[in-house]
């Protein structure tokens, strides 16, 4: 179906979205242009490129890009494309260079994208101004950073980068937990893919209606999940349905018009923690902060998951950054990067890594069943038996919160906010 015939406004209603939003390749093409081609997308964290010349390769929508640190120490996001004949310049996930060099004809580029040299330059006539930016590796036009998190927009013009105060506070909360006041993404990456639409993953981040059912196989006879870390005395209760009200509802959701949202605190987040390792961590914080401040930091598990729409997510308890990359209307890649709290005991990070292996690896005990559901949604929506996907749970319980809305934890508030933002991006 051609783009002109997509009735965007009618595909999203307050409590439902049309199946075409998930399965129409023309809608996907338009998303790449109007959402991923415009929005500030998360690219990476500055700790992934600590030294000048360090780079990692990423995608922004359909655009292969390079996140690198220039010789002057600044962060750059470059199109991974030679300014000559268009070849991909870097074919590795990460690396270190003095300069980039295209393997095709040997053109070389500075780590800020500027053309450095071309072989046999005299062969280009006077009409070629090789100093023009287009002969370099083009820079992604707009960059923004918040405390080491790098965002970029492929559009030269548009709304300025802005995160609601509560969303910024999510990042602040993660960083303040590090005794050295800094974090790094230095624990490798879980990289998984599924045969489903990218929005299935985004919806799922703040979906606390699903765990009791999707993840039923992770619970024992007592209805509790496996222990998630060595210090935990019992697993999280997976199902709590006293009087028809789920315990997950107490972990309320706040969502914003731009599609961002968060949830928490989780039931039990205020439970006192202990153990030798925890005490060493607390001591590391006490070496930097007054006892009152340390109590505040450790007691501040006020959110659980946070959605930075459209492509980045942070979880506080398990400490990771997750990034979604749409590949096709029915094909999605997701990367999960553990966050290391600098200055915290190494064993704490080890425990965190072991937990992420069990929960978020492609072969983990949790994520596998989520991926199965994302795949099943895609397969099910091939059916033309019904038009709509229903997102009305908790609509009546919504109430205003700062510049957003608040609703119970198992509500579908976050999806409604995501599709409201989706509709605004897509409609014009």
């Amino acid at each position: 179906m051609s783009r002109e015939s997509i009735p965007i406004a009618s595909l999203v209603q307050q409590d439902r979205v049309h199946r075409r939003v998930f399965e129409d390749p023309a809608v996907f093409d338009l998303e790449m242009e109007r959402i991923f081609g415009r929005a500030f997308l998360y690219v990476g964290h500055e700790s992934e490129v600590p030294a000048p010349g360090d780079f990692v390769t990423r995608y922004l929508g359909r655009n292969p890009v390079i996140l690198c640190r220039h010789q002057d120490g600044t962060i750059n996001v470059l199109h991974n494309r030679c300014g000559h004949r268009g070849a991909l310049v870097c074919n590795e996930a990460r690396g270190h260079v003095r300069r980039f060099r295209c393997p095709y004809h040997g053109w070389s580029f500075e780590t800020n994208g500027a053309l450095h040299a071309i072989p046999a330059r005299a062969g280009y006539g006077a009409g070629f101004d090789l100093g023009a930016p287009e002969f370099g590796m083009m820079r992604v036009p707009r960059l923004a950073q918040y405390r080491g998190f790098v965002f970029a927009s492929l559009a030269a013009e548009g709304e300025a980068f802005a995160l609601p105060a509560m969303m910024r506070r999510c990042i602040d909360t993660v960083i303040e937990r590090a005794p050295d006041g800094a974090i790094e993404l230095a624990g490798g990456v879980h990289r998984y893919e599924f045969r489903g639409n990218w929005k299935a993953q985004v919806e799922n981040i703040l979906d606390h209606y699903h765990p009791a059912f999707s993840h039923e196989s992770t619970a024992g006879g007592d209805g509790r999940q496996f222990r998630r870390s060595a210090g935990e005395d019992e697993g999280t209760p997976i199902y709590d349905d006293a009087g028809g009200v789920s315990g997950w509802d107490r972990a309320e959701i706040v969502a914003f018009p731009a599609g961002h949202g968060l949830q928490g605190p989780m039931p039990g987040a205020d439970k006192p923690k202990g153990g030798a390792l925890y005490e060493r961590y607390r001591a590391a914080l006490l070496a930097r902060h007054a006892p009152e401040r340390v109590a505040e930091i450790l007691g501040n598990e006020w959110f659980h998951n946070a959605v930075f729409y459209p492509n980045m997510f942070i979880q506080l308890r398990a400490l990771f950054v997750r990034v979604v990359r749409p590949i096709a209307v029915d094909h999605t890649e997701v990367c999960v990067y553990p966050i290391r709290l600098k200055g915290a005991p190494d064993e704490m990070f080890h425990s965190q890594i072991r937990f992420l292996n069990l929960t978020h690896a492609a072969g983990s005990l949790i994520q596998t069943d989520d991926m199965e559901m994302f795949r099943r949604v895609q397969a099910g929506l091939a059916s033309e038996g019904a038009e709509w996907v229903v997102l009305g749970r908790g609509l009546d319980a919504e109430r205003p919160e700062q510049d957003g809305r608040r609703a119970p934890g198992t509500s579908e508030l976050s999806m409604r906010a995501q599709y409201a933002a989706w509709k605004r991006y897509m409609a014009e």
Partner: protein
Amino acid sequence: MMPEIRAPDIRPIEEFLLHEAHLLDDRRFEEWMELFTPDGYYWAPASLDQPDPLNSVSLIYDDRAAMETRIRRLRHPRIHSQTPPSRTARLVANAVIEAAEPDGSACVVRSKFIIYEYRPSIPEALERVFGGTYRHRLVAAPQGFRIAWKKAILANCDARLGAFAIYF
């Protein structure tokens, strides 16, 4: 008198590796787990040069407790990603002894594996092939060999992978 130099006999080791492969293909997970020593572990790294399983993530890094949890889930009637379950057929070959304790108490065996996986599904079945290198540290025990650790290094361990619920 010249000391006697006798290489360990590879044949019983190969038989053990094939027995292990059959247990996994036959979904006899509990018996498979019993092949490990109580402090044994299974490790499938997430990159070819991953130095250790502690400081970066792995595809799988299971001690006995994690194996028990994973296998209990594989037996759960509502494990959706295995409804219906995968069928696997694996070949293990090219076994060589890389190192052996002089007293014959333990050795490290290197081998190659190819696993064909098929899972019936709608709209189409999942079919894929995994291949790579195994390293087993085997220790002699009264009941035969036991696995002190098993490292399964997939050739594509750093690729993006679809959901999997099998041990390699």
